């Protein structure tokens, strides 16, 4: 029986938080000691529970995830931090590594990738996100330079249709309901959502 890795989860989306906790606790060598929704007052809790690994969501509401990582590195230097992001931007990765993060995973990675990252980091390795170079997104951003040209901003501007769709998604409507409401085919709604995700991903690289 391998030694158990204690993991502390900081994730504000309740569905993702509960899901990660359930998936991790199903592993014989991983145990979640706490799963919380924000970085507030979390340092004393980490010092008390002494996890080997802390999973930190990079998009923690109004909290600065980077200062949180710095705080953990400073106050609990034995604890390794893995930053979870939906889509890591190279610049952010550098800043998180400087702040003391040991690992990085794309939040939509596979469960196996998440587990591999936790095990590697717990054993002292560094896990960087799969290289962004070569991806379409990075090429586009590279092309645009550090300061996005006006035409790049245009390319990521949402169309009126996309804005209507995202408004309805925001209300919690299903694709089918949105399609009926807007007199669109369900496939059109889905393609709007797909484009919205692409545009948001692209603009978040700036």
């Amino acid at each position, binding site marked *: 029986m391998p030694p158990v890795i204690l993991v502390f989860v900081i994730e504000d989306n309740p569905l*993702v938080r509960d899901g990660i906790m359930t998936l991790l606790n199903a592993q014989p060598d991983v145990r979640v000691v706490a799963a919380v929704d924000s970085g507030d007052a979390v340092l004393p809790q980490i010092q008390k529970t002494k996890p080997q690994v802390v999973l930190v969501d990079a998009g923690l509401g109004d*909290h600065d995830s980077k200062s949180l990582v710095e705080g953990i590195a400073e106050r609990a230097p034995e604890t390794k931090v893995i930053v979870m992001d*939906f889509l890591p931007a190279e610049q952010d990765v550098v800043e998180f590594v400087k702040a003391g993060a040991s690992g990085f995973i794309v939040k939509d990675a596979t469960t196996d990738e998440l587990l591999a990252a936790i095990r590697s980091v717990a054993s002292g390795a560094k896990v960087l996100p799969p290289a962004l170079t070569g991806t379409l997104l990075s090429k586009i951003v590279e092309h645009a330079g550090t300061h996005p040209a006006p035409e790049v901003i245009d390319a990521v501007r949402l169309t009126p249709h996309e804005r209507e769709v995202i408004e309805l998604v925001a209300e*919690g409507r299903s694709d089918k309901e949105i399609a009926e409401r807007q007199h669109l085919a369900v496939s059109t709604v889905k393609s709007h959502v797909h484009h919205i995700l692409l545009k948001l991903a692209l603009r978040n690289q700036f």
Partner: protein
Amino acid sequence: MISVALIEDNRLVREGLAALLDKTGRCKVVATAASGDTALLRGSDPQVVLLDLGLQNGDSLRIAEEVRREFPDAKVIVMDLLPVHEDIVEFVNVGVSGFIMKDATLDDLVNTIQSVVEGKHVLPPQMTSTLFSQIAREAVSRGREGAMDAVRMTPREREVIGLIGEGLSNKEIATRLIIATHTVKSHVRNVMEKLALHTRLQIAAFAHRDE
């Protein structure tokens, strides 16, 4: 031996794939056609129809629907669909039983054929092995109340979406809302996460329905 009909536009691929499948000894290709000539398949009564949509664009869903109507007793497997997650639900909805991606091996294909004949649904692994997909599946199977609440946007996120829609940069949005740029980025990340989860929850709900 499972009888298979193959709809594939590229003649070389069509003949090659038919030969490979026959060689496995587990399937027998009983008819082949290009997607424009599915009438050629009439009377062949296959257990499985393999439908290559790799070269199709807009009307691939319509073709899948036609194949389902033409062969109501056969299971349909869609091959080579571009892995745009959002599409899967619609194909499942018109009665497609399995999906196979471009990078699959012959073994993957034969195993998928076997599984759909046994009445299973086979979603592409890219779809089912991600963290979000597992989380969504679990939430749906637990019948978790409020799973949709977790993908609902907050007022602040909606405000940020509105300003993105106007074409403002993250920095301009930060100035406008008097918040830090990293906070704007957090909001954008969370919006993306919620949109992605929203899609996965819907797919999971479909997959769950026929269990």
